[in-house]
């Protein structure tokens, strides 16, 4: 399927650069964020999106203002692809008042309701019903907004996967469910979690148009999502997209991921989504190496600036918290 989409009208330089910038921004955020974590500057859990950047990048580039996304526990990439302010994201990870959640939420709860980001979620699978709900709210308002829920192979074995996708189907909602199939539910291989490892088939079984795609190809993901969103807006939703991918490391920063076979990892690293976004920019639109270097330096500097911003921000005080808590 990916090959079909890649043959479409040559993508513009603007699009290719946007896709590369987003994918690279996620890569820098995660790589540098892990360093901050190891320095002890970030508490709690940090689930890196490394290796999966192509999916959030391709999907979000295909959406419009007014659309919604709902994310997972591994949510940094979705936020960045949705256009989040990296300064406020780093500030949240550093539990500062200037963070998206003022330090109340942390890595697993970054949300930006006003921008249509329903948030990351600490409960695996929960984003699916929430996303269907946003799609329902849009339908009742008479809006053509599309909602995308990013979910996971692990979450596809949760009951709400069927319950809420089925609701989206019977109500013809503008809803796209993107299963990021990274082939591990924490440490459990997909072959141990389900007999049918082609997860898109689950959508077919309840009458939902469903696709499988190489999640490490951001451009292919982009084209498929454009088509899916158009179909939704034409009243043919919901649509399921299974995007196959692989993590570059364990479940979270402190999980060495020794259960992940080296040859599988090598296979996917050879198909790294950042490399593919960069190659597309160079090969299709003829970007010069110096231009690529300039983009990369700019994004690295942006992250450094975000760290400075976060470090210089204050934290919510216990007194402010007590006032907040009084409303409960």
């Amino acid at each position, binding site marked *: 399927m990916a090959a079909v989409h890649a043959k479409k009208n040559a993508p513009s330089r603007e699009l290719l650069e946007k896709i590369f910038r987003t994918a690279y921004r996620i890569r820098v955020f995660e790589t540098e964020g892990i360093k901050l974590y190891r320095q002890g500057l970030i508490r709690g859990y940090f689930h890196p999106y490394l290796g999966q950047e192509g999916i959030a990048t391709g999907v979000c580039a295909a959406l419009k203002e007014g659309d*919604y996304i*709902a994310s997972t526990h591994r949510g940094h990439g979705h936020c960045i692809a949705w256009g989040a302010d990296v300064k406020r994201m780093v500030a949240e990870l550093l539990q500062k008042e200037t*963070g*998206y*959640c*003022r*330090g*109340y*939420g942390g890595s697993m*709860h970054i*949300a930006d*309701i*006003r921008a249509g980001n*329903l*948030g990351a*979620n*600490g*409960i695996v699978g*929960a984003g*699916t*019903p*929430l*996303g*269907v*709900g*946003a799609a*329902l*709210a*849009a*339908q*009742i*308002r008479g809006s053509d907004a599309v*909602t995308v829920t990013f979910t996971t192979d692990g979450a596809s074995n949760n*009951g*709400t996967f*069927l*319950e*809420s996708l*089925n*609701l989206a189907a*019977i*109500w013809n909602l503008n809803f796209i469910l993107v299963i990021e199939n990274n082939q591990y539910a924490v440490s459990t291989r997909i072959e141990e979690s389900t007999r049918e490892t082609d997860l898109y088939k689950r959508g077919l079984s309840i009458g939902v148009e469903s696709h499988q795609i190489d999640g490490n190809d951001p451009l292919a993901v982009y084209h498929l999502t454009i088509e899916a969103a158009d179909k939704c807006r034409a009243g043919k939703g919901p649509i399921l997209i299974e995007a196959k991918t692989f993590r570059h490391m364990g479940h979270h920063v402190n999980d060495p991921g020794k259960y992940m076979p080296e040859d599988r990892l090598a296979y996917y690293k050879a198909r790294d989504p950042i490399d593919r976004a960069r190659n597309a920019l160079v090969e299709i639109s003829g970007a010069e190496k110096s231009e690529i270097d300039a983009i990369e330096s700019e994004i690295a500097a942006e992250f450094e600036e975000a760290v400075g911003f976060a470090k210089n921000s204050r934290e919510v005080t216990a007194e402010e918290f007590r006032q*907040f808590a009084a409303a*409960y």
Partner: protein
Amino acid sequence: MREIMYREALREALDEEMQRDPNVFVIGEGIAERGGSYKVTEGLLAKYGPKRIRDTPIAEAGMIGVGVGAAIAGARPIVEILYVDFAMLGMDMIVNQAAKFRLMTGGEGRVPFVLRTQGGAGGGVAAQHSQSLEALFYHIPGLKVVMPSVPADAKGLLKYALRQDDPVMFLEHKHLYMTKGPVPGGEHIVEFGKADIKRAGKDVTIIAWSNMIPRSLEAAESLAAEGIEAEVVDPRTLVPLDEETILTSVAKTHRVVIVQEAVRRGGVASDIASIIQEKAFYELDAPIEIVAGLNVPIPFNLELEKASVPQKSDIIAAVKRSLYVPSYAMAAE
């Protein structure tokens, strides 16, 4: 004032609020054409159409989650769950999503979500259709817990629920739907956190909610025949709880009986007792009495079912114990 049934009062609130606010909609099992098991939504499909009155498959976790998501995205959903027992299937969505969203987003996010359901024993529907589970929701910060006992409160509280921005567990009682009472027409709103004195009295304060209000009022009438004047306080909302009205009544009567249909262990009555002893210890002339359900699942057999939840005679006995009526003081031993 005209008298209408509890279920009619609820329907009137839904009708008025759906007319006022196009963001209000209802989803649930058999609520559209059928009008709901208790006929609360009867007629609303014809008036508001299938976009805003929708039947769902039997998928409680999904439909509660979809309601929460719609609320986060700015709509005002009401999810009707047939029995509070079935809300257990959607507890993640209630407890981990709806209740926590506001804090997790640093105060930015709002979840104007109303879950309407009903509980309570007395229908011969046994252990999985008879529970009173308010304590589970009371325990979770972020949820409002509403338990109307009379038609007027049912209407006013539901209208208020649809105008505020936090998740509400609106817990009706299966035995109250057919009860009648005076209900103001039009804009009758009951704010959360305002208790109502259902009967004034000077000798003892009975605190009760939901179906324990009519039962407590019956007990109070019998006690009045013996010269004991009970004041019956209905908090109407357990979260937020109107401590002021409760404490004022305690300062007047100096004796307290708390009645809940739910099981005794870990119940709301125990928490209210704890608040009273902490804030009004020197007002008390007797130990606080709690009349509650047995710590047991509700059995099917009628007599056993009755034995598992508070009856009028249990309330009368507790009042007399608190007044040190001699034979009852002995019975407490």
